C-alpha cells in the first residue's frame, strides 16, 4: 500500500525503535535514582541523630579528685568510706544539711555518693563534645585538643542512658534528662485520648450509620476533611485563645479550686490535651469512617432481619467487626499527637520547669518541645542531648506503632478463631 512507506523503511523503524528503547532505559535509571535518594534521606536522618548521641566529651573538673584524696585521680577509685568522708568534708554546710535530711549519707548507695560528689564538689564542666563519626575518625585531633586544654580529660559518652530518662531538666548538660518532658507528654496524650476517642468515634458512627446523604452531611464530610489538613499551628492558636485564655478558670483548675501554685494560668496539661484532641479529632473520625465503610451491608441487613434496632446492630455487630481497625487507627493518631510541637509551643509550654506534672492542672513540657529547646541552643553539648532525646522519642513512637500492630493482629486473630 502506498501509505505503508509513511512509517519509513525497515531501517528507519529500527533506528526509531532503538531510540525509544534507550529513552525507556534512561528513565528507568532516573526512577531508581529517585528511590535511592529517598532511602538515602531516611538513612542520613537516622545517622545524624545517632552521630550526635554518642561521642567523646572533653571535661574539666573544677576540683580534681586528686586534691581530695592524694594519689587517686579518678573518683571511681575512692572507696565507700572515702567517698563519705570526702562528702562530709567538702560539701557546703547548706547542701550537706539538705542532703542529710533527704537521706543520710551513711544510707546512700555508692553510686549516689559518687554523683553527689560529682555534682557539688568535682563539678566537671563540658568543654567540647564530638559526634560519633568524628570520635571514630578524628581521635588524634581530639586528643590533641584535650592535651592543649589544661586539666581536661576525655571520656566517651553515650548521651542516651538510663539516667537520661530519670533525670529532670537541668542547666548542666551532663545532668540533664527528659523525665519531666516524658511525663508531660504521657499526661497530655492521656487527655487527648480521653477527649478525642469517644467524640471522634461517636461522630464517625453518626456520619456513617445514621446520617442521610443530604447537603448538610456532605458539608460535614468536607468540613472534616479540611480540618484534617489545617496546619497544626492554627490549632495552637485556637487552643491559646479558647482553652488558655477564654476558659482559663476551667483549664487552670481555679474553678475547682485545685490551684497547685500561685501562678495559675491556663497553660496546663488540660489545655494541651484538649488542643491536641481537636487536632487528632478529624483523623480519628476519618479513620473510623473508613473502618465502618469496610463492613459489608449484609451484616447490618442480617441483624435488622432478626429484629435488632439500629444501635443494637451498631454496638453488637458492626463495632465488634471493625473494632480493631478503629483502635489501630486511634493509636496511630495518638502517636502523631505525641510528636507534635508547634501547637503546644503556642499554647505555652513551660520553658523551664523542674517539677514533674502532678495532674491535669499542672504546667508542662513535652518531649518534642524539649528537643526543640535543646536543638535551638548553640552550645555543643545540647546538640548531643537533643540527639539522645530524639532517639527516646523515636523509641516511644516505635513502641506505640508496635502496640497498634499488635492490637490489630491479636484482635483479628481472636476473631478468626471465634469463627
Amino acid at each position: 500500500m502506498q501509505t505503508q512507506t509513511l512509517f519509513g523503511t525497515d531501517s528507519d523503524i529500527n533506528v526509531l525503535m532503538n531510540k525509544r528503547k534507550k529513552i525507556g532505559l534512561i528513565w528507568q535509571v532516573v526512577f531508581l535514582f529517585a528511590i535511592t535518594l529517598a532511602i538515602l534521606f531516611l538513612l542520613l536522618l537516622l545517622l545524624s541523630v545517632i552521630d550526635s548521641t554518642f561521642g567523646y566529651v572533653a571535661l574539666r573538673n573544677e576540683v580534681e579528685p586528686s586534691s581530695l584524696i592524694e594519689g587517686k585521680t579518678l573518683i571511681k577509685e575512692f572507696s565507700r568510706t572515702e567517698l563519705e568522708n570526702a562528702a562530709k568534708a567538702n560539701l557546703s554546710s547548706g547542701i550537706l544539711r539538705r542532703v542529710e535530711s533527704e537521706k543520710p549519707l551513711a544510707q546512700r548507695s555508692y553510686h549516689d555518693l559518687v554523683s553527689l560528689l560529682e555534682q557539688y564538689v568535682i563539678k566537671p564542666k563540658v568543654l567540647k563534645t564530638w559526634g560519633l563519626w568524628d570520635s571514630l575518625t578524628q581521635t588524634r585531633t581530639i586528643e590533641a585538643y584535650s592535651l592543649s586544654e589544661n586539666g581536661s580529660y576525655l571520656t566517651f559518652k553515650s548521651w542516651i542512658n538510663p539516667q537520661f530518662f530519670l533525670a529532670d531538666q537541668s542547666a548542666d548538660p551532663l545532668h540533664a534528662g527528659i523525665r519531666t518532658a516524658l511525663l508531660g507528654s504521657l499526661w497530655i496524650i492521656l487527655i487527648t485520648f480521653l477527649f478525642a476517642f469517644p467524640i471522634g468515634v461517636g461522630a464517625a458512627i453518626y456520619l456513617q450509620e445514621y446520617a442521610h446523604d443530604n447537603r448538610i452531611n456532605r458539608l460535614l464530610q468536607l468540613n472534616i476533611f479540611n480540618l484534617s489538613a489545617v496546619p497544626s499551628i492554627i490549632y495552637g492558636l485556637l487552643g491559646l485563645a479558647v482553652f488558655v485564655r477564654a476558659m482559663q478558670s476551667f483549664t487552670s483548675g481555679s474553678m475547682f479550686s485545685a490551684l497547685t501554685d500561685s501562678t495559675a494560668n491556663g497553660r496546663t496539661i488540660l489545655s494541651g490535651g484538649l488542643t491536641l484532641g481537636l487536632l487528632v479529632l478529624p483523623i480519628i473520625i476519618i479513620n473510623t469512617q473508613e473502618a465502618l465503610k469496610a463492613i459489608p451491608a449484609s451484616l447490618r441487613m442480617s441483624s435488622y432481619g432478626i429484629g435488632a434496632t439500629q444501635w443494637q446492630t451498631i454496638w453488637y455487630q458492626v463495632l465488634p467487626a471493625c473494632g480493631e481497625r478503629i483502635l489501630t487507627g486511634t493509636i496511630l493518631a495518638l502517636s502523631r499527637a505525641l510528636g507534635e510541637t508547634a501547637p503546644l509551643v503556642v499554647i505555652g509550654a513551660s520553658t523551664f520547669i523542674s517539677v514533674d506534672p502532678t495532674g491535669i492542672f499542672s504546667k508542662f513540657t513535652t518531649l518534642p518541645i524539649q528537643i526543640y529547646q535543646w536543638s535551638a541552643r548553640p552550645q555543643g553539648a545540647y546538640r548531643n542531648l537533643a540527639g539522645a532525646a530524639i532517639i527516646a522519642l523515636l523509641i516511644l513512637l516505635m513502641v506505640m506503632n508496635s502496640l497498634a500492630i499488635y492490637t490489630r493482629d491479636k484482635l483479628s486473630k481472636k476473631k478468626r478463631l471465634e469463627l
Partner: protein
Amino acid sequence: MHERPIHPFGKRKRIHERIIETTLFLFAMLSILITVGIAFILIRESYLFFSDPAVRLLDFLTAKKWQPMIGLFGIRPLLNATLTTSIIAMAVGMPIGLFVAIYLSEYATDRSRGILKPTFEVLAGIPTIVYGYFALTFMTPLLRTIFGKANVEIYNTASAGLVIGILVLPMIATMAEDAISAVPKDLRLASYALGGTKIETTFKVVIPAALSGLSATFLLALSRAIGETMIVALAAGAGPKLTANPFEAAETITGYIVRISGGDVSYNSIDYNSIFALGLILFIITFTLNLTSRKISSLFHQEYD
C-alpha cells in the same frame, strides 16, 4: 373491656435509641463548631489587630518591613520567606516523589514494593521536629561546605526548604502512587496493543490520565509545606527579612507565630493580636489549597468510577 388491643407491630417508643442518635449527632456537629471556632477566633483577633491605629490593611499586605517595635507591619518579608521555603520544598519533593510513585506503581516487583512502601510509611511517621534538627545539624553544614561558609548563613531558608521537601516526599509518593494505580489497566493494555513501549505508556497515557489526582497531590503537599513550623523555626532564622537569597536567614509566617507565642506575650498587646492576623492569612491560604485539591480529586473519581 374496651381497651384498644396493642397492635403487635406498632412503633415502640425507643427513647434511648433517640438519645444515642442525638448525642452522636452532637459529636458530629462539634466538628463544625471547631471550624467555626477557628474562623471566629482568627477573625476576631485579627479585627483587633487591624483596628489598632498603628496598622493599615494596605500596608499590611504590601509594605516591605515587619518591625513591630517601630510600628511597621508589612507582611511581605514573612510571606516571601514562606514562599521561598515552600517553592524549594516542592521543587525537591514533587519530582522525586512522582518518580518514586511511578517506580512503585509500574516497575517495582511485589517483593520490592513490600519493602519500599513500609520504608516510606516510616519516613512519614517521623515527627517534624526531628526534621528540624536534621536541617540544623546536617543540611546547613552541608550547604555551607558545598557553597562556602561565607555564602551561606548559619540560618537560611534553603536548608529549611530542602528538608521540608524531604518531609513531604513520602506524602507525595503515597498519594501519587494511589492516583497512578487508580488508572484502569485497560488503558495500559490499549497502549501496549498499539505498539507503545512501557515508558511511552507511562508518560503519554497513564500520567495524563492520572493528572487530576496528581494535581490534588501537589496542592495538598504545597499546603503542608506552607503550614510547616518546626523546621523553619529551627533552621530558617528568627527575624523577618525580605530577601531573594535563600542562603540568608529569614523568618516565615509560621516561624514568627511560634517565636512570638513562645515568648512572654501579654494578652492585650498588638503582638498577641498580630499572630492571629498572620494565622488568618495562613488559614486562608491553606484552606483554599485544600479545598481546590479536594474539588480536583473528586472530579478525578468521577472519571473513573
